[in-house]
């Protein structure tokens, strides 16, 4: 059967045939299972995507447990689990619940928010480069934070608010500038790149204005770090995710249709502009909140959706897999930053930057080989 199809494909004189035939040879049969209940309920499950989600969640949790056990006072994984369920000794309890658990939770939430935000942006712009890193949202949030640090010598809370406002304002500016009877992929990316350049210039200016202490503080903030995060950072982030994640997932089906172009999705009955505005706003909020909590952790929003997509091999925005991938990536990167470099702890942003940068290069090289760019 497969050979017969291949023969037909070559007879059709299509440039993509060689590539397509090679790909279909390794293609597994897609396992979409429909689960139906008597009352007319039916849910469609992509078995492979579901497996990926479960495995990534397990990976993220396992990495979290290991990460909690890592530090100047190492704790074994068993003890970590025992302490988490309330069975540890007093010393371990303090270290785990007060010092390390909030940091890991912030890492998980920031990673999840960045992964989901990145997947949303890439789907809305129909372009893997349309991720918040490149659109300048991180730069915008940084500008907000730097203004607080340099101009007002604000405390940590004010810096967080500054970053949030900066990210939201940048997102809004990009949306308004790119809006012309709907927001389209390339325009969004180009406007975003322009915005990013402007914000970078603002940040550079602010840094030169800063005195030495503020500048050092600013630079640490700008690399993206999870150290010293406590419960005060966890709760707002958790609350935001609890609202936005269900909201986004409820609109995922509309977003999936929008991949086929505005006209097709409109014809299918998707209220395109409404869904896009809602999802864009959610993505900006998620990214800005994540940046406010941990600084501009680079490349997670860009890589997580792409990696997730390669694992699920599923068309569509892959929102949930990207979310889990972001969380797993960030916690793993944090573990690497603490573990591999020993006493000189690196901010997590350095690790994600190095890993993400290498990945981006690899992506560009393979895309070029495949003749897509």
């Amino acid at each position, binding site marked *: 059967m497969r050979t017969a199809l291949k023969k037909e494909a070559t007879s059709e004189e*299509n440039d993509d045939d060689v590539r397509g035939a090679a790909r279909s040879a390794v293609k597994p*049969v897609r396992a979409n299972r429909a689960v139906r209940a008597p009352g007319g309920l039916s849910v469609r499950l992509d078995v492979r995507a579901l497996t990926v989600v479960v495995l990534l969640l397990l990976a993220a949790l396992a990495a979290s447990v290991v990460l909690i056990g890592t530090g100047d006072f190492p704790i074994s994984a068993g003890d970590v689990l025992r302490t988490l369920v309330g069975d540890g000794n007093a010393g371990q309890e303090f270290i785990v619940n007060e010092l390390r658990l909030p940091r890991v939770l912030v890492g998980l939430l920031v990673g999840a928010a960045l992964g989901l935000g990145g997947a949303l942006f890439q789907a809305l712009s129909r372009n893997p480069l349309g991720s918040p890193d490149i659109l300048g949202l991180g730069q915008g949030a940084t500008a907000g934070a730097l203004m607080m640090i340099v101009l007002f010598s604000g405390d940590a809370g004010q810096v967080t608010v500054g970053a949030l406002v900066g990210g939201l304002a940048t997102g809004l500016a990009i949306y308004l500038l790119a809006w012309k009877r709907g927001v389209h992929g390339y325009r969004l990316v180009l406007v975003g790149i322009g915005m990013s350049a402007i914000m970078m210039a603002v940040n550079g200016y602010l840094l030169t204005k800063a005195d030495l202490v503020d500048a050092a503080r600013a630079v640490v903030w700008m690399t993206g770090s999870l150290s010293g995060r406590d419960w005060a950072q966890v709760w707002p982030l958790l609350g935001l995710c609890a609202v936005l994640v269900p909201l986004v997932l409820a609109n995922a089906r509309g977003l999936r249709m929008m991949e086929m172009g505005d006209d097709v999705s409109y014809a299918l009955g998707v209220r395109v502009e409404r869904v896009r505005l809602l999802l864009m706003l959610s993505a900006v909020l998620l990214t800005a909140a994540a940046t406010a909590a941990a600084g501009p952790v680079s490349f997670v929003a860009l890589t997580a959706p792409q990696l997730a997509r390669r694992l699920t091999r599923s068309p569509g925005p892959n929102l949930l897999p990207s979310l889990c991938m972001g969380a797993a990536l960030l916690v793993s990167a944090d573990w690497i930053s603490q573990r591999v470099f020993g006493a000189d702890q690196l901010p997590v942003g350095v690790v994600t930057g190095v890993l993400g940068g290498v990945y981006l290069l690899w992506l560009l090289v393979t895309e070029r080989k495949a003749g897509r760019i």
Partner: protein
Amino acid sequence: MSAGKGNENSSGLNNRRSTVNRLSADNVTLAYDQRVIAEQLSVEIPDNSFTVIVGPNACGKSTLLRALSRMLKPSQGRVLLDGQVIQSMPAKKVARTLGLLPQSSIAPDGITVADLVGRGRYPHQGILRQWSTEDERVVQESMEQTGVAELADRYVDELSGGQRQRVWIAMALAQQTPLLLLDEPTTYLDIQHQIDVLDLCAQLHEEQGRTLVAVLHDLNHAARYATHLIALRGGAVIAEGAPNDIVTAELVEDVFGLRCQVIDDPETGTPLVVPAARKAREQVRKERGDQGGRAEKVAATEAS
């Protein structure tokens, strides 16, 4: 035109059905931003017809189709679907009544034929009703009708242009709408695949009684396949009716500015447009002092 009668009947009665036909445009002004494409345009799509809209480039064919499918909101006037203003209807309800195959559509990376056709079921689904046995049956049926069933597990981006167009038509069919609008479904296809797609449309119209509206470039294809023809120029209806009744040499010259003969198609007996030879056209142009033709062209360019 025939739509004029409907307007007189319905004037003043805003929410009443203007005519017996399901889809109509009532005195619409169509514009992109400030650029007006058509003014005071009224069009009726006869039920159960295969209506084809023809006209020179930039005459507003596609714009009219966009308005009929509520992609473009008229700046004045209204488009009525089953007696209601189409913009005021719930999006999914419209999508269950009226399907559109636009000119530009993007097949997502790595999507299979069956998955893409399945997406046409969106307006019939909800968050708790994602994939019923009915959906599965309709998708299979749509793929069989368009002859792409054996390609079900293939990736869309590895298909030829003709196959791909069939897949998109299958997706629109899976939407199961009594009305189906197609924007230049034959563009970029070679002659064999063009006829293939048109045959498919004729079959959908004849066997399933769907109302089809298509924008076509080729006047001969339009005359052969349409049961109802609408000829547009500069955003106004120049003539409408059955191809046998309205396609004449005068009309073609009036609409397209092209001198021609209209003969009977030896295969089907429908009108066949044969452009006049270059020399003959040049001679006429000289006789007329080269004014008529050029003025037409300028008008057409301005409308773009």
